[in-house]
């Protein structure tokens, strides 16, 4: 296992990149700690697969270095990097039994038979396939095959890192739950360095110690799930995390007050003269509908999504979403909203401004 250092890394698919636009991956300097679980989260085209391919050795970056521990592996082929990989679609040998599939990476490296046997049993128990070890992989469901792929990715204890590329895409929602939770406890138990690429926020947030949010070739924030939720550093993080994402409302800021269309909203912190595009960001979870107090909204649609309701409304010309609890009745006269000042973030040109304690 090893710490992974990304040093002055950048990549362009263009032969002679001239402008920043030409880079699929812009300047990256990060140290990823040994034994942590990281998720790379972003929409398609954000650069997350490019980064994963650089770490796995499928791609040599146009600039910078990748270190595993102290060792520079920038130009080393995948086979020499001592990593395990799990892909979006199951990669299993149909003609082999489940046991042989799981044992394969160990056998390949000449581990002794007793160790292989013990380790395969352990992994089979983890992925809940102990009773299927003797059957051939052929004819198993996609779920089961992907479980084998996950198990095989985890079977070696001495890898530098395990890389997962959207591993739960083909899995049914119910099974997703199970596999994700198993992955998490496997991480807890074995302490591998894990890097997990996904566009699914729930998978990223529940799996990772640290989530690396990528947008347009950049890491816009690296933080705990709580940090990404409470204090998104960039409006993209606010939008991408949460369902629906953070509401963004153009505003004028005067110290610890925001003005939207002339109406005042109290802020938890004070802000000095901001310029450019200024917005306040507030999550739907932190807005409250009321019939009595607050600023006016026009409700357009109420969606009952089971465990809560999503209210889609218009607030001084901006779209705004509000989340209300399952049991709350939304009556026609509930056309006002109140803000929780402590939960409002302020953005200038899409980046969060910290402000001063009021």
């Amino acid at each position: 296992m090893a710490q992974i250092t990304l040093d002055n890394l950048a990549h362009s698919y263009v032969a002679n990149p001239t402008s920043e636009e030409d880079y699929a991956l812009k300047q990256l300097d990060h140290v990823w700690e040994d034994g942590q679980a990281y998720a790379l989260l972003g929409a398609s085209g954000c650069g997350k697969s490019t980064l994963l391919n650089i770490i796995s050795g499928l791609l040599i970056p146009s600039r910078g270095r990748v270190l595993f521990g102290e060792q520079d592996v920038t130009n080393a082929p995948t086979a020499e990097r001592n990593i395990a990989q799990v892909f979006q679609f199951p990669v299993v040998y149909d003609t082999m039994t489940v046991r042989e599939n799981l044992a394969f990476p160990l056998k390949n490296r000449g581990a002794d038979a007793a160790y292989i046997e013990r380790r395969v049993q352990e992994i089979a128990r983890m992925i809940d396939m102990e009773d299927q070890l003797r059957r051939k992989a052929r004819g198993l469901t996609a779920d089961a095959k992907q479980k084998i792929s996950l198990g095989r990715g985890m079977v070696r204890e001495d890898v530098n890192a395990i890389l997962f590329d959207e591993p739960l895409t083909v899995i049914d929602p119910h099974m997703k739950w199970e596999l994700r939770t198993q992955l998490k406890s496997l991480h807890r138990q074995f302490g591998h360095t894990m890097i997990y690429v996904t566009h699914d926020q729930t998978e990223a947030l529940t799996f990772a110690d640290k989530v690396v949010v990528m947008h347009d070739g950049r890491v816009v924030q690296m933080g705990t799930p709580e940090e990404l939720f409470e204090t998104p550093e960039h409006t993209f993080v606010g939008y991408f995390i949460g369902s629906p994402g953070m509401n963004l409302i153009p505003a004028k800021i005067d110290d610890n007050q925001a003005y939207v269309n002339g109406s005042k909203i109290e802020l938890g912190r004070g802000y000095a003269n901001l310029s450019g595009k200024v917005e306040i960001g507030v999550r739907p979870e932190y807005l409250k509908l009321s019939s009595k107090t607050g600023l006016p909204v026009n409700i357009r649609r109420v969606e009952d999504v089971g465990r809560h309701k999503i209210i889609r409304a218009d607030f001084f010309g901006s779209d705004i979403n509000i989340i209300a609890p399952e049991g709350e009745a939304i009556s026609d006269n509930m056309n006002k909203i109140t803000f929780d000042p402590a939960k409002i973030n302020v953005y200038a040109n899409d980046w969060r401004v910290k402000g001063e304690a009021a």
Partner: protein
Amino acid sequence: MTLKLEGVSKKVGGQVQIHPTDLQLEKGTMNVLLGPTLSGKTTLMRLMAGLEPPSTGEIYWNGENVTGRRVQDREVAMVYQQFINYPSMTVYENIASPLRLMGKPASEIDAAVQEAAELMKLSPLLTRKPLELSGGQQQRCALARALVKNAGLVLLDEPLANLDYKLREELRVEIPKIFEKSGAIFVYATTEPEEALLLGGNTVALWEGAITQFGLTPEIYRNPADATTARVFSDPPMNFLQISKAGPKIMFGDGQSFGAAGKLSDLKDGRYLAGFRANHLELKKHTSDAMRFNCKLAITEITGSETFIHVDHIEDRWVGVVHGVHDLEPKSDLSVYLDPAHVYIFAEDGRLVATAAYAQAA
């Protein structure tokens, strides 16, 4: 406009894919086929479309028997999980293609293409080829082609499954709007309970080739007819535990009991299965009659605003979703609380015998 299935079944190579099914869908309704992979969603859609003949039974369109009629001769449009477009044609020609096949006049085609493109936000992209578009735009193009036909029956087979999470969220908001404008019968297959709830309308719950329940979506969510439907319609999965009723008391495995009030007092003494959803499991006692369960914490997952807690209670693994961030130590003892009003009671064969009190009120 109605689509009616009467005793429709499908067998392939001696294997039952769809059990004999009766179903009637009405004009201007959104109907979600909800079930896990291999539950029969796609087969049922192919039968509805006429892409496959049923092994038994009849299919009626507006009262007319169309069972043997070819798909080309029916008023059907279908959109698949994979974005299917003609790669060599522009977006405009892709959308226009079904109308060209019908031999419509050019002016009519143009008007229909412009309208569908406007609705699907494709107007600025009409001269591009599908492969120059993002995944979301490609699927919008496929959706526009389905809409332009003005078919009475629009079948959408997991149309958003291959899209990014956020794009899915956006299209989910748009699809009900499109549907409202078209007035057709929409059938939408998904594996995801949340998607069904967001789409609203009616839900057809499917399990192993049979419809377990059909009705208004929120109604089925809150009043599932049996444990199977409840399971299909819960994400995270519904939690279950064995209980027994003796006289005025309902007993839980670990000595807990609560008074069998209301409907529950009519239950016969005996063993039952209790079920409750993850969001109703709590870490604090919010109501005076909440029951406490002593569990072992298996693992927590923090999403930023909520925490998923996985706990072991005697033989059962339960999952709860609670507000806020709770960083709890795995393997530790944990008390969790459950309000009896949130408990569904199923007979041992899975039939619902008493719905949760909160659901009756909702």
